[in-house]
């Protein structure tokens, strides 16, 4: 696992989500990327039903990544996180009296996985309750584990196929995180942040429509 950067790519003017995704695929293929199967990332939200102390509880997110197929990541926003094996899902079922799955909040991103040299690029469609809400692009530079080392490199690469849509980096990392080797939770927290953003946009546009 290498340094990862997850960002949202806006849907091109006058195009559908699928068209924009196809465009990105084409660009990647032109660059020399090779399609290597598919990927998906999903995120489930749990609420604590009752809290003994009575204070406002945070939401627990349980995420899965096809890149780490035997793992299950549990995160609190800005809080501790846990990496466990797939049995954690079973445990969450056992815990259903204490933690309730907010089915409607399930977000996932699915799409194609491209390899280009040591880069792994995943272009996904973000879906909330099976309707496409946006496009996510994940770029992973597998050869390096220190974010600070290869930020410029990743940036240059993203600019090469995203153009002006390339994000400013680093997105959400503290100084300390920049210089420590990344782990498998890092892309998950980025996705979590992205999903949160998309959800907010959804709420805003939704409210605007209504």
């Amino acid at each position, binding site marked *: 696992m290498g340094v990862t950067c997850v960002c949202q790519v806006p849907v091109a003017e006058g195009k559908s989500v699928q068209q924009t995704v196809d465009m990105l695929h084409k660009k990647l293929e032109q660059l020399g990327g*090779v399609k290597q*199967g598919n990927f998906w990332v999903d995120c489930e939200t749990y609420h604590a039903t009752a809290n003994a102390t009575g204070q406002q509880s945070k939401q*627990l997110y349980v995420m899965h990544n*096809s890149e780490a197929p035997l793992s299950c990541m549990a995160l609190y926003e800005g809080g*501790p*996180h846990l990496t466990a*094996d*797939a*049995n954690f899902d*079973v445990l969450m079922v056992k815990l259903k009296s204490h933690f309730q799955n907010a089915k409607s909040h399930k977000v996932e991103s699915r799409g194609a996985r491209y390899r280009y040299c040591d880069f792994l690029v995943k272009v996904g469609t973000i879906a909330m309750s099976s309707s496409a809400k946006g496009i996510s692009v994940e770029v992973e530079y597998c050869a390096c584990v220190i974010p600070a080392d290869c930020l410029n490199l990743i940036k240059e690469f993203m600019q090469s196929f995203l153009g002006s849509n390339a994000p400013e980096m680093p997105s959400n990392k503290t100084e300390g995180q920049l210089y420590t080797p990344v782990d498998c939770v890092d892309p998950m927290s980025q996705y979590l942040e992205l999903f949160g953003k998309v959800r907010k946009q959804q709420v805003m546009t939704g409210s605007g429509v209504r």
Partner: protein
Amino acid sequence: MEAPPVSVMPVTGGAINMMEYLLQGSVLDQSLESLLHRLRGLCDDMEPESFADHELVYLLRGQQGNPFILRARRSLLQPTSPWHLRYLGQPEVGDKSRHALVRNCVDVAASHSLPDFLNEMGFRMDHEFAAKGHVFRKGQMKIVVSKLSRVLVPGNLENTEPLSLSYLVELSVLAPAGQDTVSEDMKSFAEQLKPLVHLEKIDPKRLM
């Protein structure tokens, strides 16, 4: 490059509805050696392995009903190996003909951030202890002979005090629900350990 085959399990899932079949007993410190000797002869051809673990028992109290118990255990001998988080359900009632205690069981291997995370989830540590002993294997049966010690200062594993003058002997099998034949095997194995140790079906509820 060919895409590696994604031949792994579905993303959500894990092992479904596993059951633990359990027989328990205890042996005095003096007769430990002869028990180990017997086990070495009975069990699979492997060097018996000793272990030293630290177990933390967490409780999550809801508004109603019993608290939810989770056991988090880590190895002291192999500090890099993952934590083991375990949920044990209530023993199945009925069916007196079964020779072993049967209960639902969820085993999760977790990263080292487990204690923090459990705290964040609302779990509180109830008690902790250290277990040291030997583990044997016979087919799918696991035999754990362990000495339980009280942790005197929370978190300090240097300073422990044995709970009793005997060793806990546990014979367990993990199997999907409904495979009651394993309890037969367990029984016959337990027979072979007699009279060194009497492994019995002990309902923890009776002890409470």
